[in-house]
């Protein structure tokens, strides 16, 4: 009770603190030469109040204070402490509060970390950022307060959806939010810089850090979600082109493109329009994601609440921000006087630019695939859902040139490169195609596309490996990230092509055999855990004289009363063995799904490598 009250009032005081920040910023902007420390202090006070409010909610969860509506709806007294805490952001209200925490944290860090820069630019960034912060404050207090009281106080809560009670998913939202919200700093800063015509090499070097931070967190956040989906949802896949996965992928694509544009801007002072538009797009897409997820306009595993009023607020707020950025862009931005000779056909920036266009293409495919069903539904009342085949058909062929340019680009110089001494590029390409040809020669699959695609992925793979040995390590971050990407594409392709699966129904004691596997259902153990009853099956699986024991599990949770299926996965260096079981209604049979998925581990490792590239780049600067 006391924690909720505390949380609620600090939230309101936090909003009030925005007033002095606005006041001092405007005075300071006009009159003085150095930045007023009051702005920094008040930003800190705002951060402090929001953190207090957040802790208030966390403690309400920890002490299972069911007089708080959010706690009542999402927690239960028998839940383990860890999931009580993670339940704080496992729901609509709490996750928005977390979003606000990160917003205020980042602007405070921005103020501290931008000391050497133009005063007017810093103040203007704070002002633009305050607009976003105020929007979220109002949304939280008015439309989705996490501190609503229920009277009389219920004895017990409704519980957290069991599939969310998972370590990976407990940290997935905060990490992802750091990525999403990081893009808000980029957004405010780019608006400020455009207004003051401050987009320069200097600015690029400074904003690059923020781009890297949000990019690394966004990448890791997506990775965590993916890993969770892989072992928890029991389908054995890691990416389903679910609308909510797509809305995290879209900012990632925009942010990745932005990162490369910033590099060009830093080196050559060109592409400033790209940088501005992409910065705006990244944040808009993040917000759009929030809108799509939180309003319930989409059907997805992530949809929490279906409340049109909330959706309307986010929608209006989103479009106000879009309008502000359009006005700023068209009023203040002067396109750079480009020297017509500044772009040469064979240069690093040209290859980056080409791949930027490819990225924009991928982005539009995902955007259309995600939004088209909504448009169609509104205009013609037809319900369709866009599935993986759409994305695969439109994206996969274009990965071929994309991978090739990604391999060649870093081999070229800035401004203008020569084509002499580049014979190794051709030789490696032929070798890669040959290897891929040998792999696919005896397989009955779509031969041409797969060979060329895997060939180009190998091409990037070999070229980056070669660079590790032959080049000076001054560009190691780029090399690691690109190497990781080639590894990712290769693992995904091999995983897709060489996966095998077996579905059957078995009773305890029965076995199933086909020409490749033999599965024996040994026994079923029942045990009682803190908030669920567990049924653990024991299976022996034999394949080519290799014997494995796997133990998938069914959990019957007490509150809410839901059955979940926990996969048992045996991970080895080259393949995952993945088994799930599900009860068949009113039968003593269990539906058993056994999958062998090669290179699963490498998908995760390669994404980690990609983020490692970003991390190295972030920390190298400071040394």
């Amino acid at each position, binding site marked *: 009770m006391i924690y909720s009250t505390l949380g609620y009032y600090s939230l309101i005081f936090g909003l009030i603190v925005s007033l002095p920040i606005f006041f001092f910023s405007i005075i300071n902007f006009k009159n003085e030469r150095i930045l007023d420390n009051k702005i920094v202090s008040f930003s800190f006070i705002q951060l402090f109040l929001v953190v207090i409010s957040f802790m208030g909610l966390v403690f309400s969860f920890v002490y299972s204070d069911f007089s708080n509506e959010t706690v009542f709806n999402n927690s239960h007294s028998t839940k383990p402490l860890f999931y009580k805490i993670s339940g704080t952001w496992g729901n609509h209200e709490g996750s928005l509060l977390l979003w606000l925490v990160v917003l205020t944290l980042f602007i405070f860090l921005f103020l501290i970390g931008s000391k050497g820069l133009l005063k007017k630019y810093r103040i203007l960034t704070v002002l633009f950022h305050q607009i976003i912060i105020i929007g979220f404050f109002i949304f939280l207090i008015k439309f989705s307060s996490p501190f609503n009281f229920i009277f009389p106080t219920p004895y017990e809560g409704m519980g957290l959806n069991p599939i969310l009670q998972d370590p990976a998913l407990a940290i997935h939202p905060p990490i992802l939010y750091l990525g999403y919200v990081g893009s808000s700093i980029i957004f405010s800063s780019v608006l400020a810089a455009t207004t003051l015509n401050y987009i320069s090499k200097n600015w690029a070097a400074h904003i690059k850090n923020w781009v890297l931070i949000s990019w690394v967190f966004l990448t890791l956040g997506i990775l965590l979600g993916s890993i969770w989906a892989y072992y928890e949802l029991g389908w054995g896949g890691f990416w389903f082109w679910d609308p909510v996965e797509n809305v995290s992928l879209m900012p990632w694509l925009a942010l990745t493109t932005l990162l490369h544009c910033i590099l060009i801007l830093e080196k050559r002072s060109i592409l400033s329009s790209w940088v501005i538009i992409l910065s705006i797009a990244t944040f808009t897409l993040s917000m759009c994601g929030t*809108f799509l997820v939180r*309003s*319930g*306009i*989409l*059907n997805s595993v992530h949809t929490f609440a*279906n409340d*049109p009023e909330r*959706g*309307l607020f986010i*929608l209006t707020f989103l*479009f106000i921000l*879009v*309008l502000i950025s*359009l006005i700023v862009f*068209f009023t203040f931005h002067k396109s750079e006087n480009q020297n017509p000779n500044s772009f040469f056909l064979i240069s690093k920036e040209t290859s980056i630019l080409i791949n930027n266009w490819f990225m924009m293409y991928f982005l539009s495919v995902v955007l259309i695939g995600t939004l088209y069903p*909504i*448009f169609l*539904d*509104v*205009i013609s009342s037809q*319900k369709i*859902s866009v599935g993986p085949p759409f994305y695969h058909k439109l994206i996969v062929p274009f990965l071929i040139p994309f991978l090739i340019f990604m391999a060649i680009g870093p081999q070229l110089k800035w401004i203008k490169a020569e084509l002499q001494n580049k014979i190794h590029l051709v030789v490696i390409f032929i070798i890669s195609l040959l290897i891929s040809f040998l792999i696919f020669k005896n397989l009955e699959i779509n031969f041409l596309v797969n060979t060329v695609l895997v060939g180009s992925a190998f091409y990037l793979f070999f070229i980056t490996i070669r660079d590790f040995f032959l080049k000076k390590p001054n560009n190691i971050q780029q090399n690691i990230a690109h190497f990781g990407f080639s590894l990712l594409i290769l693992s995904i392709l091999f995983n897709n092509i060489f996966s095998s*699966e*077996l*579905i*059957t*129904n078995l009773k305890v004691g029965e076995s199933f055999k*086909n020409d490749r596997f033999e599965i024996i259902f040994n026994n079923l153990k029942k045990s009682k855990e803190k908030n669920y009853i567990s049924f653990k099956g024991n299976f022996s699986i034999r394949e080519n004289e290799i014997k494995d024991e796997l133990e998938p599990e069914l959990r019957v949770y007490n509150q809410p009363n839901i059955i979940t299926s926990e996969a048992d996965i045996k991970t080895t260096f080259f393949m995952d063995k993945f088994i799930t079981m599900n009860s*068949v209604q009113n*039968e003593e*049979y269990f*539906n058993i799904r056994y999958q062998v998925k090669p290179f699963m581990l490498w998908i995760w490792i390669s994404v980690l490598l990609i983020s490692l590239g970003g991390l190295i780049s972030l920390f190298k600067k400071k040394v």
Partner: protein
Amino acid sequence: MKNRIVYYLLVIFFVFVFVIFYRGLNNSNLYTPNTNIKIVPEFTSETLLKKKSVDSKDIFNKEDYYLLNIWASWCIPCKDEHPFLVNLGNSKKIEIIGLNYKDNLNNAEKFINELGNPYSTILLDRDGTKAIEWGAFGVPETFLIYKNKIIKRYIGPLNSNLVNEINNYIK
């Protein structure tokens, strides 16, 4: 000048998107497939065993009774009803079309080889979308078709009573 046009176009575009989203908010996003389908839906499908693609118009082309049976090798009630289908098929009074639902092809072939094949054609529905077009609830489900119209549907496994009912129709 050019900038200004782009600006207005963008504003109009975003207003359009706003309106669409706004309308979308008030729509329910729960999709309930139509289960009351009276006319045979049109589709093309791969087939099991013969490995070729067929069109729905070529299957239900005669002015006669047809039975469409949705089944899967993993579906246990399907095993129970299968002998009835085999008997019906042997009687040659009616053409039975199978729709293999979300199945592993090897298992499906094995099922047919072990228990007999009453079907003149077995259509494949690997992702379950064709069954939705038929308005089916699940497996097994059987549709009695006459002159391209669905005149009777049996949800769940067939039994001797239902088979007698079918026999009465096709006499």
